[in-house]
């Protein structure tokens, strides 16, 4: 057992933190919340130059050849900085799906461009009927006519669809609306005729979209993975996405704790630093416990994923725990920062709003505890 990061991983974290402190100050984060695109091509280009988009991809596609843990370090730092923009959609949801399920020619076509920062990707998955998270509730249809598929239906909460070049569309090619059988993934050109999108206004102001597909043509060679075999690809992808989101949340939660601890060491009331009060100390201790548990369970699960060890149980544990833990940390942070932290221009709301969005993304504790109930063999 070894909880240490390698020297390279530590350097990666340090340089990422430094870079984001300079390039992604909170003024920029707030600006991007109001910006119609939500990111700038300048920063995107700089991130590509650092090799961030290629961190987890093999060198043959222009990547850095790192492993999943390296990607998690970046995501943790991005969560700490509240980095806006389509990194998660592009690299985790798009890139990893292509790497996992793509043909050699699809990998060659998409990955090098994505890694150079020339291609923005996303995953069009959730639908209106998914009022509670369920990855296999898919009604959007893809119907085959000769060498074309026609995609028809509406997707919701598609991250960064408004800036994406390609979307991985999750569609039903067979079977009932709910179930693993008959789900197929497609690489859909986001500029295809028949696609319309509209920004949704959300608590995190991160601009997920409604995407309407009306007889959208997708050539047969853009099928990603096997026909009707999308569920297992999706399952693997969502495991990595959930753990990636956990890393992002841990980074954010750690920032909240750091901010509260420094505040408690300088803010005086009743003639004393508030950090001397046991009530404040216990809030801070609870925040640290929530974060430490979350950090190690996230990295343990990531290690299992990168070793190819089946770990649905731990994915469920991690996403359920971290989703709730970040929320608790944010709530305690608000107690410590008090009135000043309630103001819109304060950093605190940037984190508590994102904590809520991240909790929902790829399944919350409610969903994963249902998964866990099966994993601990509650069913006969």
């Amino acid at each position, binding site marked *: *057992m*070894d*909880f*240490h*990061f*390698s*020297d*390279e*991983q*530590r350097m990666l974290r340090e340089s990422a933190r430094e870079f984001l402190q300079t390039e992604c100050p909170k003024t920029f984060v707030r600006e991007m919340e109001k910006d119609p695109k939500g990111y700038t091509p300048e920063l995107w280009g700089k991130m590509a130059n650092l090799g961030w988009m290629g961190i987890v991809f093999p060198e043959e596609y222009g990547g850095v050849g790192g492993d999943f*843990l390296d990607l998690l370090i970046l995501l943790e730092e991005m969560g700490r900085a509240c980095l806006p923009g389509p990194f998660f959609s592009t690299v985790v949801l798009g890139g990893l799906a292509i790497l996992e399920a793509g043909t050699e020619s699809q990998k060659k076509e998409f990955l090098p461009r994505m890694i150079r920062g020339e291609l923005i990707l996303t995953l069009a998955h959730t639908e209106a009927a998914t009022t509670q998270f369920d990855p296999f509730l898919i009604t959007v249809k893809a119907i085959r006519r000769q060498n074309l598929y026609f995609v028809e239906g509406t997707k919701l909460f598609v991250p960064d669809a408004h800036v994406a070049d390609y979307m991985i569309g999750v569609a039903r090619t067979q079977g009932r609306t709910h179930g693993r059988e008959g789900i197929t993934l497609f690489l859909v050109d986001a500029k295809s005729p028949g696609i319309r999108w509209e920004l949704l206004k959300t608590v995190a102001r991160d601009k997920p979209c409604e995407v309407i597909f009306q007889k959208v043509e997708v050539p047969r060679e853009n099928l990603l993975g096997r026909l009707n075999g999308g569920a297992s690809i999706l399952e693997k992808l969502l495991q990595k996405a959930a753990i990636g989101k956990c890393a992002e949340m841990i980074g954010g939660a750690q920032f909240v*704790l750091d901010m509260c*601890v420094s505040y*408690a*060491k300088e803010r005086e009331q009743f003639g004393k*630093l508030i*950090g*001397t*009060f*046991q009530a*404040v*100390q*216990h809030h*801070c*201790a*609870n925040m*640290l*416990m929530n974060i*430490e*548990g*979350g950090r*190690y*369970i996230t*990295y*343990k699960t990531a*290690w*299992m994923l990168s*070793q190819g060890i089946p770990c649905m*149980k*731990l994915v*469920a*544990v991690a996403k*359920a*725990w971290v989703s709730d833990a970040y929320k608790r940390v944010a709530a305690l942070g608000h107690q410590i920062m008090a009135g000043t932290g309630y103001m819109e221009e304060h950093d605190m709301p940037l984190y508590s709003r994102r904590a809520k969005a991240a909790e929902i993304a790829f399944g919350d504790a*409610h969903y994963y*505890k*249902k998964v*866990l*109930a099966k*994993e*601990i*063999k*509650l*069913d*006969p």
Partner: protein
Amino acid sequence: MRGDEGGKMDFGYTKEEEQFRERLGNFLDRELTEEIARQNWEDRGVGPEAREFSRKLAANGFLGMSWPKEYGGQGLSPAYDFIVIDELGRRWGAHIPLDVGYTMVGHTILRRGSEKLKKEFLPRIIRGEIEFCLGYTEPNAGSDLASMKMRAVEEGDDYILNGQKTFNTEAHYADYHWVAARTDFSPDVPKHRGISLFIVDMNSPGVTVWPLRTMSGEQTNEVFYENVRVGRHRLVGEKNKGFYYMMEAIDSERNHVFTPFRLLPILEELILYARETKFMGKPLAEDPVIRDKLAQAAMELEVAQVLADHSRWMESNELPMTYEPEITKVFVSELEQRLVDTGMQILGHYGQLEEGSKWVPLRGRIEWYFLHSFMTTIGAGTSEIGRNVIAQRGLGLPRS
């Protein structure tokens, strides 16, 4: 790997560790019974079977793995000791049979004791032959431990001890008292700088043990000292450094005592109970609320395990621990309370039945744990003191 240099993240066990676990598991399946497990865990007094089990555990090479060879150990990584603790724990919540000596006192003797003390005590601890009990708490020194009043005054080659200790669990069957007493009485010395540690034979003249019965039926004790004569060679380390030694040992104690694996049998019994027990013709395991509660407990157990693994890993690699074992302690003890509360809710009416009653489910274990769980967040330091430690040592917040 030692020190703070870079490694490679790895959450697995080595092949040697896995083989050791398997060999140990086979031994425990053969030799350990629920009765032996409970004798120690419930502080009912370690009976002849448990003493015999303790000696066998040692004879088969499962004690003292990380201890130096010169005192009877095997000079391996502490990771092996933790495997023993886990494998015992997953079987009825068992612990090292004579655990105070083995998991707490022995490490301080090794670190701070004279060569004479090491030679006298360590081999017998590793052979599973002797037990200690801690003599720290006093009626007016609980959370504020440094304010203890017991006195040890030098007289020739001896110290004369007078005073009273309380909540000294194991005192009624331990062979030795690991007792802290004041040795500097000048008012200008801060109270934590005037305390020393001694090893006292429990059958020394002037030592009296009075039983105290806890709400869950365990025995703990008051221990009275009246002019008890202790040889100077039984002073541990330096005079007036005792409080530092106690604090120094706390992290390792937490790592060795607060073991998430010991809660696994409770969860597993509850899962089985929920599957096999019906209400209105349907298994309880189909009730979404019960499923959610058990999943919550299973989740928290996994988090507890990785927290424990982290602070154990720090100890195994001699990294400086500050707040990590305290987090494990607070988390595991509070998890036990929540888990047992869930258990009592699942058992419904039947939850209140005690062991031996007609209709009692799960041998009354959940009811016993329910009573016992009031102690876990108090014993070895309350959750509140624990949070002070985490905030002050871990986060650098100023002292209250």
